[in-house]
């Protein structure tokens, strides 16, 4: 049981408070972007390229303009007049808003049709006739790196290849030496395929430009409204939009997972059209567009190597990555981190030597590089280390749990400096794995496995003991387009002791309206039920970088605690004044100050706040408000120990996940119910890429599974009944000791599943399977080994 300092009535930290936001959703009264209707609103639909790589010879809009209801068709040439046909990406690359001469991927935006109704816009879209000169696309990233590969980004003067950047970290020479001298070296190529977040709500916006007041209100599905406002000001400043005249509103969001961080061309076109027409313009993607054109995640080709001793000590790791970025680098990473936080790939293990390098390459695929419920490329890193660790265990014939126990960083060694320079804040990896093994009955399962194997049955047990890195991040290293990655909270307590608090983040289902209120309740003793949380409106909320990468609790959550403590300091002063004692004589107990040694002499927080408006000490500012911009001193390092059991049908390759136990350490827990819910959801988004999801392209760059008929989002039938638990090692540098949890399970679970599958197949000499591991792949592997 989690110990709570506050009563249930207050519902501070540790209470499984039922969510405050639920009621409106349960009545169908959420306000999602497509629910918004404004007077005179126009609708936009977008004609897209059927080809992956083609010159645009002509765009004929005449038939489209004849469609009843169509008011305009916008092409790249139209935007070029305003220098809006290209835009910068978050990684300082460039991306087309609409093309003027060349399309670079299938489903790329080609022309926008604006009409008085959704149906007319779609009819207009069908009537846009585009003449293309089809070119041979470059789809395979390895071929794209060849010296003789056609150069794709001919728009970049002097660009002579498709290489985007090279990145490396660690001690190359030392790593080479350790590998050279090692008793055991294992090496594995693995592909972490291109996937898509596919939140059930797609992306969309209503751009509402008011010509009279030269004011833009941009309602949109964004996880980072403040950053978007600044980007709009930077991109559209030259046409007269300045930042104080831009308001970005992010309404209720139907799932984000990183897919709602980028600025998509559709948003920019909608703004441009609203600017030109003076009317609100709505653009809502359909699912096919969302899957086919919006930012992908992953797409890392990794070669992982591990050097160790026969006795099972890990000595060094080496990782080489080829990152397929599509036609532009539109990754959503902190600006200085091309590979995100991939350098966490040394994992949960105690060794001091590692080297990693990565190269990124252009291909004729959609741009992206977003999270998919993951902190900046950490999933790729965790997959690499947890798979290669299992390969090592297999190679030396050691039980993978024992091998992990032997190599874990010890609890007492935190804070611990990793070979790539991170300072892990805290953890107890041994306790986590031990708890997971006990929960699942590890030893009994291994015995059962021996019996099953005698009968030729395929059963596997897989482990993943991962370390996450979240909460970006400290301003000395972390920024996006120069804006430091702090986040913020502003708390206003009203005279009757009820509060409103606003944040720079934006919930997409994480439950901020409840958990932020609980943090403030913990600090001030005001019931969480009486604390209203607001996010997503740049006119009212303090500036912040938004919600992604499990950063809300580590940054804005911290800001809430610090801002509340500022208020408590003020409350102490007021209480001292009211009780006519010295501040030093006051003791804080949730919800009130009392006089040391005389607990009957006290003032509740409500009395104190009322006095702040009615009877405040002379010389003190009236009111009861505080704001804090929290710049984290370090990242936080949640961890987990996951164990998966699978049974495989040898004849068909069908994989049944029999059990899955997840023990998470996300530090102090604000709301166990929500944390557990986040873990459940993250696990299903872990089994998804492990067994079901991949965006697949043919050699001509055609996407082969661009709808939910073939892009296989798991249902309740595929998703197992998850078993969850936790250990707590508080983050020592975080005001409330919390670490963040939303993404850990997505990051940590795929290797547990794959390790279980490979474990099941290992008697036949199968050492690796690339995700998604499908029945067909399993059958093929068994076939190649002559088993079926």
């Amino acid at each position, binding site marked *: 049981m989690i110990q709570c300092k506050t009563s249930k009535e207050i519902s501070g930290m540790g209470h499984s408070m039922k969510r405050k936001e639920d009621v409106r959703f349960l009545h169908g009264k959420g306000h999602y972007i497509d629910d918004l209707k404004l007077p005179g609103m126009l609708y936009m639909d977008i004609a897209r390229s059927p080809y992956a790589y083609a010159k645009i010879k002509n765009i004929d809009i005449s038939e489209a303009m004849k469609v009843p209801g169509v008011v305009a068709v916008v092409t790249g040439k139209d935007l070029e007049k305003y220098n809006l046909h290209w835009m910068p990406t978050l990684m300082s690359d460039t991306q087309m808003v609409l093309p003027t001469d060349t399309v670079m991927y299938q489903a790329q935006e080609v022309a926008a049709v604006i009409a008085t109704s*959704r*149906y007319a816009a*779609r*009819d207009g879209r*069908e009537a846009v006739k585009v003449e293309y000169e089809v070119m041979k696309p470059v789809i395979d990233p390895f071929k794209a790196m060849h010296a003789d590969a056609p150069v794709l980004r001919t728009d970049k003067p002097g660009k002579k290849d498709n290489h985007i950047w090279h990145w490396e970290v660690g001690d190359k020479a030392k790593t080479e030496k350790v590998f050279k001298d090692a008793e055991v070296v294992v090496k594995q190529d693995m592909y972490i395929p291109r996937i898509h977040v596919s939140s059930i709500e797609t992306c969309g916006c209503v751009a509402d430009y008011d010509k009279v007041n030269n004011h833009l209100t941009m309602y949109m599905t964004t996880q980072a409204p403040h950053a978007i406002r600044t980007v709009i000001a930077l991109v559209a400043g030259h046409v007269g939009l300045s930042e104080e005249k831009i308001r970005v509103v992010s309404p209720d969001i139907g799932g984000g997972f990183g897919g709602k961080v980028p600025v998509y061309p559709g948003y920019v076109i909608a703004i441009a059209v609203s600017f030109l027409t003076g009317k609100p313009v709505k653009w809502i993607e*359909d*699912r*096919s567009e969302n899957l086919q054109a919006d930012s992908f995640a992953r797409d890392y080709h990794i070669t992982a190597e591990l050097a160790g001793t026969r006795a099972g000590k890990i000595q060094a790791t080496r990782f080489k990555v080829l990152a397929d970025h599509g036609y532009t680098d539109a990754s959503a990473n902190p600006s200085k981190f091309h590979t995100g936080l991939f350098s966490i790939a040394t994992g949960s293990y105690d060794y001091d030597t590692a080297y990693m390098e990565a190269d990124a390459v252009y291909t004729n695929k959609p741009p992206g590089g977003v999270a998919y419920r993951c902190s900046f490329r950490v999933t790729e890193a965790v997959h690499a280390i947890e798979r290669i660790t299992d390969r090592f265990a297999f190679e030396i014939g050691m039980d993978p749990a024992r091998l992990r126990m032997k190599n874990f960083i010890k609890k007492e060694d935190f804070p611990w400096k990793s070979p790539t320079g991170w300072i892990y804040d805290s953890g107890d990896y041994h306790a986590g794995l031990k708890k997971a093994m006990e929960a699942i009955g590890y030893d009994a399962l291994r015995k059962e496995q021996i019996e099953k194997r005698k009968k030729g049955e395929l059963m596997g047990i897989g482990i993943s003991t991962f370390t996450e890195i979240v909460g970006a991040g400290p301003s000395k290293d972390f920024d996006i387009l120069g804006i430091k990655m702090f986040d913020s909270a502003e708390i206003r307590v009203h005279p009757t002791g009820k509060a409103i608090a606003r944040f720079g983040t934006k919930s997409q289902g994480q439950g901020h309206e409840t958990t932020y209120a609980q943090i403030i309740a913990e600090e001030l003793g005001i019931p969480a039920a009486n604390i209203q949380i607001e996010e997503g409106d740049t006119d009212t909320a303090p500036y912040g970088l938004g919600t992604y990468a499990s950063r809300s609790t580590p940054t804005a959550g911290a800001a809430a605690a610090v801002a509340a403590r500022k208020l408590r300091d003020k409350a102490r002063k007021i209480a001292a004044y009211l009780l006519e004692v010295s501040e030093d004589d006051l003791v804080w107990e949730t919800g009130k100050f009392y006089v040391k040694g005389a607990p009957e002499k006290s003032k509740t927080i409500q009395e104190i706040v009322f006095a702040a408006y009615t009877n405040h000490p002379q010389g003190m500012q009236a009111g009861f408000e505080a704001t804090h911009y929290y710049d984290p001193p370090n990242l936080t390092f949640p961890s987990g120990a996951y164990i998966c059991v699978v049974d495989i049908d040898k*004849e*068909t390759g*069908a994989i049944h996940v029999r059990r899955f136990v997840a023990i998470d350490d996300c530090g102090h827990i604000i709301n166990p119910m929500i944390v557990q819910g986040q873990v459940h959801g993250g696990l299903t988004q872990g089994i998804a890429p492990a067994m*079901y999801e991949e965006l*697949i392209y043919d050699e001509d760059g055609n996407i*082969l*599974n661009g709808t939910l008929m*073939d892009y*296989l989002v*798991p*249902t309740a*039938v*595929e998703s197992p009944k998850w078993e969850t638990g936790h250990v707590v090692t508080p983050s020592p540098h975080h005001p409330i000791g919390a670490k963040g949890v939303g993404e850990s399970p997505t990051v940590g679970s795929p290797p547990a599943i794959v390790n279980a599958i490979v474990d099941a197949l290992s008697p036949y000499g199968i050492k690796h399977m690339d995700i998604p591991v*499908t*029945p*067909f792949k399993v*059958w*093929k592997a068994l*076939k190649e080994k002559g088993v*079926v």
Partner: protein
Amino acid sequence: MIPQSFQYESPGTMADAIALLEKHGDEAKILSGGHSLIPMMKLRFATPEYLIDINGIPGLSYIREEKGTVKIGALSREAEIEHSDLLKKHFPIFADVTKLIADPQVRNRGTIGGNLAHGDAANDHPAVMMALQATVIATGSGGSRSIPIDEFFFGFYTTALKQNEILTEIQIPVPPAGTGSAYHKLERKVGDYATAGVAVQLTVDGKGVCKAIGIGLTNVNPIPLRAVRSEQALLGKVINSENIALAAQFASEDCNPSADLRGSEEYKRAMVAVLVKRMVLKAAERAMGK
């Protein structure tokens, strides 16, 4: 995703529906459950000028037994088939198959007639109907005619239905005692089209000899396929592992699957063999009341 404009007709009688079909020719499509057609129209893969909605025609939705034949009205929804006690009594295969068709909401709309008339080898009922040796009743201006299921499927999305005919009923002979049936398909996730699917109905005598058998295959051939050689391998013979293996082998040889995201041709052939084996065994167990 929005369909192209069309004219909508909602005839109240079969005669009116057929008259509309004759009037509009190839420009018209019949709307039954709509769960194949409307998605295709939303994607604008299908752009009919006239949509003739037969859902308002009374008397097309029923499941009843008459003189040794079970008759299923073409507008019977998958959900009705799933929960029909009459079908459960004679044909356990329907419980197998309906559970695997799409999802509950789709089964509330999708009709058995539409599932067959769509002529899609990926649909599940064609194989089942082949296993059950059903007869399809087609109604046109000149009245109704019976089409044996083996003669119903012609080619890719084409059936023996004439342009001015509507599939109105499916007739299935009630099998004798000692009969069992079973269906299974491998799917990538619940509700998916089959990677491979196999339907079996067989009758056994007291000695375990197969007296009658039908085997249909789903989504492993350009048109729905009856596994005739597999049936022959078991008909009149004892259902033992040797004969089952032969039946399985024949089915895997006689189908003609194409490689796609669900797997290679080789995989699908292998899965046909596995499923023939499993479904014959399951049907035989049911036949013998196990």
